[in-house]
């Protein structure tokens, strides 16, 4: 009998896939680009040893973020998608065991990411040649990165096994990774005063803090960076790595054990996020039900179930549903379809409220030290990034799900026109995001004005905030259009969101760094901050405008064609995110 048959098969499939080799080459090339860029830009004012350390440190940090993101990107939806499509049960009709499937899926989903990381590691050794970085440090960094990636994909697999819905799988993965990587160290810092250096605290508190810290890849990363600059906590570093590895194996083992028990639909999902959400929902439900349930009235039906309560929270009661229908259906039926989940805007407000609470907690805990430019910038970056990613997901979701389910073609068989569908979706996004965007802009304004140097506002400070705010609003608009287009043409919401975020959010930065590098190579240094800022805004707006315009044109002309993709013969898939005219089929009827 072959050991782990699916793993073997997936490895053979991956070996035949061009993407495996391309992703590997791209990862190494990207790492070279980062090194080249740093050498060209910072080499003028740093001694060689410092350059080497900076390159090593930056590259390690970038690869660390990449490794952490792999769980959400690669494995979070690999089992849950099979559950939704009903194909998982077929595997269990064979002799395969849970661990066969979990390890096979892990190999299939994460192998490309692992190869990419592996390809980038030799590039990490280049600083070794420059001096200032030791072989020990390189070994530690490599172990840390591989371990972090394993942890991330293991968490993704665990969440995927426990979820049916892709949103739930993704949020459980991200939530668990953030919890272990960042929240646990933060709690440990508060509990034991571990990092603050203010007071050592009692030994038992320190032990608790250490126990909270050890599983965190973030803690190991922190130790690695501090050791690089002279710290000496080698035992703790390897201990943290071992704990994270054990935790990752525990996640995988649990996933393998649970998979044969949860592949059928009726099994209840009890991921961490689900448990937490369930607990909160039950508490709210209890508060809501108490005034209604204290006295049994004659003829009263049994008390409503939690599921009914959640439905009511999401869509409103019968009257509220009808009122919303009456109001929106006559305006634009698709607007109602895309906006009928009342909880969607509420969740954004809840997110903003949670951030506000965290901010207040940070301010109370850290005191005056908290109020500094770095905190302001980090706050704005977090808010902007979260809302941008959020709108990319929401813009792509409705069209993607409706196209895949076949519901979109039913809508298109009615006299509802393509412009009406697009307008309805855009207005739904507006209802969901317009007010939070205004609030975030107000927060930006407050944070911008909160910092003054020598009782004066710094021009560069104000300029960079203004640029950030302009790009934020523009990106939200671009992402709405580009997200819709990607939702229509992509295989899944995740793929659509990734592409939209990649083109609108990441590509301008890549082009910006390329521009700066070329300027440095050509000895045309952009020394003025205003010029650098204008370059970044210019690139961001240009890229976004091109992408959004192309998306808009494609949506207007090709929505009908893509809505019934399953009837078209399978063409070559295109990596080009702006779409390509399919020339083997005549156009659909648009009138």
């Amino acid at each position, binding site marked *: 009998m072959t050991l782990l048959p699916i793993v073997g098969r997936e490895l053979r499939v991956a070996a035949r896939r061009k993407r495996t080799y391309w992703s590997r080459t791209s990862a190494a090339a990207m790492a070279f680009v980062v090194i080249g860029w740093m050498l060209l830009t910072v080499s003028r004012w740093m001694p060689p040893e410092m350059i080497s350390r900076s390159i090593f440190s930056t590259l390690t940090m970038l690869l660390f973020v990449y490794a952490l993101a792999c769980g959400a990107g690669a494995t979070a939806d690999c089992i849950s998608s099979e559950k939704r499509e009903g194909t998982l049960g077929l595997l269990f009709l064979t002799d395969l065991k849970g661990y066969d499937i979990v390890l096979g899926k892990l190999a299939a989903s994460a192998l490309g990411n692992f190869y990419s990381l592996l390809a980038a590691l030799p590039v990490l050794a280049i600083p070794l040649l420059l001096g200032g970085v030791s072989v020990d440090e390189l070994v530690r960094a490599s172990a840390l990165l591989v371990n972090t990636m394993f942890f991330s994909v293991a968490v993704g697999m665990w969440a995927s096994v426990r979820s049916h819905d892709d949103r739930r799988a993704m949020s459980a993965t991200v939530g668990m990774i953030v919890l272990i990587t960042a929240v646990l160290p933060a709690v440990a810092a508060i509990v034991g005063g571990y990092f603050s250096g203010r007071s050592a605290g009692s030994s038992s508190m320190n032990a608790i803090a250490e126990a909270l810290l050890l599983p965190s890849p973030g803690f190991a990363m922190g130790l690695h960076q501090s050791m690089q600059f002279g710290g000496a906590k080698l035992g703790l570093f390897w201990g943290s790595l071992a704990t994270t590895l054990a935790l990752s194996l525990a996640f995988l083992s649990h996933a393998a054990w649970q998979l044969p028990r949860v592949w059928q639909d009726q099994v209840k999902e009890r991921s961490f996020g689900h448990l937490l959400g369930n607990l909160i929902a039950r508490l709210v439900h209890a508060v809501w039900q108490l005034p209604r349930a204290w006295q049994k009235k004659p003829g009263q039906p049994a008390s409503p179930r939690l599921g009914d309560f959640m439905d009511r929270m999401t869509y409103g009661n019968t009257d509220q549903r009808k009122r919303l229908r009456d109001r929106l*259906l006559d305006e634009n039926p698709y607007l109602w379809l895309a906006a009928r989940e009342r909880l969607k805007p509420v969740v954004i407000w809840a997110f903003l409220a949670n951030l506000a609470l965290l901010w207040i907690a940070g301010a109370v805990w850290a005191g005056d030290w908290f109020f500094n430019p770095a905190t302001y910038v980090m706050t704005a970056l977090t808010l902007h990034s979260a809302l941008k990613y959020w709108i990319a997901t929401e813009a792509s979701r409705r069209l993607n799900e409706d196209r895949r389910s076949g*519901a979109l*073609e*039913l809508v298109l068989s009615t*006299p*509802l*026109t393509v412009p009406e569908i697009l307008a309805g979706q855009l207005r739904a996004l507006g209802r969901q995001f317009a007010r939070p965007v205004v609030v975030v802009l107000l927060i930006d304004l407050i944070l911008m004005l909160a910092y003054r140097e020598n009782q004066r506002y710094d021009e560069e400070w104000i300029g960079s905030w203004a640029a950030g705010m302009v790009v934020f609003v523009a990106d939200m608009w671009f992402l709405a259009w580009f997200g819709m287009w990607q939702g229509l043409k992509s295989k899944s919401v995740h793929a659509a969101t990734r592409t939209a975020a990649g083109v609108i959010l990441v590509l301008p930065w890549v082009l910006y760094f390329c521009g700066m590098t070329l300027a440095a190579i050509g000895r045309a240094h952009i020394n003025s901050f205003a010029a650098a800022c204008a370059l970044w805004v210019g690139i961001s707006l240009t890229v976004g405008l091109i992408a959004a315009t192309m998306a808009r044109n494609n949506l207007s002309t090709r929505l009908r064609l893509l809505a019934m993709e399953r009837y078209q*013969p399978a063409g070559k898939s295109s990596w080009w995110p702006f779409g390509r005219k399919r020339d*083997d089929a*005549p156009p659909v009827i648009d009138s």
Partner: protein
Amino acid sequence: MSETPPPEPKPAVQTFGLTRSYGPMLALDHLDLTIQTGDLFGFIGSNGAGKTTTLRILATFLAPSAGRAEIFGHDVAKDGDAVRRMIGYMPDFFGVYKDMEVTEYLDFFAACYKIPARQRENTCADVLELVGLTEKRGALVGALSRGMQQRLGLARVLVHDPKLLLLDEPASGLDPRARIEMMAVLHELQRLGKTIIISSHILSELQTLCNTVGIIEKGKLIYSGPVQGVRDQMATGLIYWVTVASDAARAVELLRARPEIAAAEPVDGQVKVTFADGHRDASVLAEALLAGGVKLTGLWEDELGLEEVFLRVTRGETQ
């Protein structure tokens, strides 16, 4: 003064050399089809024969590569909006919004057809009653059985009171009871004056349901017309069954000796007789048997079913 005759009513569906290709693959090859108003037309063909492509062109989803199609005189490629108001299209596989209530679902599609809010409530109630789902009006669509979802799909295509229904495999995947109920609803709709085009693989049901059929293979229309017409047209090699009181082997021998009979063979104690082309006079059977001293106890014609007709006229090349 001579009275001008009333204009000829336009056919519900008319196609003229309708052609559609997907790259090198020809899905429809110069299809000329006419369906009269009020017909219940059964569209028959193997998988990949071109049925769904035809229905999708009529539903304004696909543009023809060549030729044209008209629905009540409106060109589907040029006047898509008007056509969409006149048709109700139900694909073979359609997505439902599982988290909607039945009423919400119909209300939404009624709004897509621009039915005013005042009328929508009554319209939804009427179509739910027609398809027998009134009891389920408050249920979630996802909680309905497959048969009920199909009926809800039928209710959806009826909300705007279309003149023509395009139903692609409406009974696929349904259990026998749900199929019978679906057929009953279709009968009722025909009685109400709707023109219905139904594509199905369950030919025995189409045989009793439809008054006209079209048989398509490899994108070409092989036959289009009344169900009885196709039987008559295909009735080459007419088959009779014969039972005799005594020796069946002797009867076979006697029948084979007649030039009008192409084949005779014993099957389960009976004799299956196939006439030669151009011969259909059953009296020769009795004559031959009586002349040979075999007592005839039973004689009946094997009526050609739609399935038999389908198998005869197609070769299953598109399966």
